[in-house]
């Protein structure tokens, strides 16, 4: 087990480094460190477009399900989820570019 994961309070950190904990000497530490760095960079890149992902991943289905709950139809004969995706993606894109939601 990697040195940082010995204490139970560091369990969340262990999740990110899960393959390091499971490595058990199969890979050199330098390789494991590089893989961890790549993962962190990838996550940072992901966070930079998070508003767009949030628009698609959360706002879109919320809009569709709220419309269903209240019995509203989407305009122009669209499916509710397509309408939700349109609004969610555009709003998320705006937030990604502007850095704020409104």
């Amino acid at each position, binding site marked *: 087990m990697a040195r940082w994961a010995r204490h139970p309070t560091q369990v969340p*950190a262990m999740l990110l480094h899960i393959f390091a904990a499971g490595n058990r000497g199969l890979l050199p530490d330098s390789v494991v460190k590089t893989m961890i760095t790549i993962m962190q960079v990838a*996550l940072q890149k992901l966070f930079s477009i998070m508003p767009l992902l949030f628009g698609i991943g959360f706002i879109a*289905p*919320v809009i569709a399900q709220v419309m269903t709950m209240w019995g509203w139809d989407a305009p122009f004969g669209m499916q509710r989820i397509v309408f939700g995706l349109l609004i969610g993606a555009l709003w998320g894109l705006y937030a990604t570019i502007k*850095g*704020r*939601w409104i």
Partner: protein
Amino acid sequence: MTDDLTRLDTLSRETIDAPESGGSALPLAADEGLDRHTRVDLLKQERAIAAKYQNGPMWGYVVAAVGGFAIWLALFPLTMFGAVHPAITLVVSTFLTVAGYVTCHEAMHDNIAKRGSKYRWANQLVGEVSLLPIAVPFSMGRVSHLEHHKHCNHPEKDPDYTDEAPNWWMAWYKTWWNRQPRVDGTINRYKSVCQQLDTRESRLALKQTMIVQVIYLTVLFTMAWNGYAIAAVVCWWLPRQLGLSYIRYFLSWAPHHPRAGKTERYEQANIFKSHVGHFFSMCMETHLIHHLHPGIPNHKTKAAYLEMKPILEKRGVDCSAI
């Protein structure tokens, strides 16, 4: 408790050693004429009172934190499968989200169990579970909060300084504004403070923050795309938004406003009367006591304040509100 001045903490020492004519150090007239002997004597009295309220049983916080977390977690399936109405879930989850910060706040100051105690695990447990409803790890909460205490009301170094606003309605607006993706407030400010600190704790806090945020978003996305979007909104997303605004307003803006220039020991926080009462303002009416003596548990700050009031008045603290 000791009379030995060599054991006074740094802040106390600064208070004693402050120039007697230094009006800027202690703002109100009552203290300006205090000589060194009087300041030392008042500090001894203050510390004697504080000692009475520190320690004591803290299991209530442990039960509240673990029980609250269990209820919060249970609301997910209960709401998803229609056993609890979404409106009830929203109210309960928001309450638990706010209450979670109170219990975690005690853990940040090691008040549940000190380092080296056999119950130290309880301190860690309370801290870890209490902040999950706001999707922030305990490590980040602790690092940023201790920086707030260390540099209270410093425009650049206090991570909470971005909550400052000229009036109450702007303060509520600011709580929302500071959560925008690229605005330098709350979690974004906490991250930059951690990056600047670059200690083992701050690096761990940054990693854990990333993980908790990924988990939070993964849960929301998964629930939403599997037909439980409304449950996700009322269980986690909306209570987090409402709870964060409530916490920022009552824990950061109200007790510290106005912040500008108020960096000295007795002016870091205010004594104020809340319209929603002591309990619903998270005992923040007497937040100054917490800054003076962080070892006093949250629920005892008002009693400690009432006993310290004559001393604080001599120090020049405005105690007219309570």
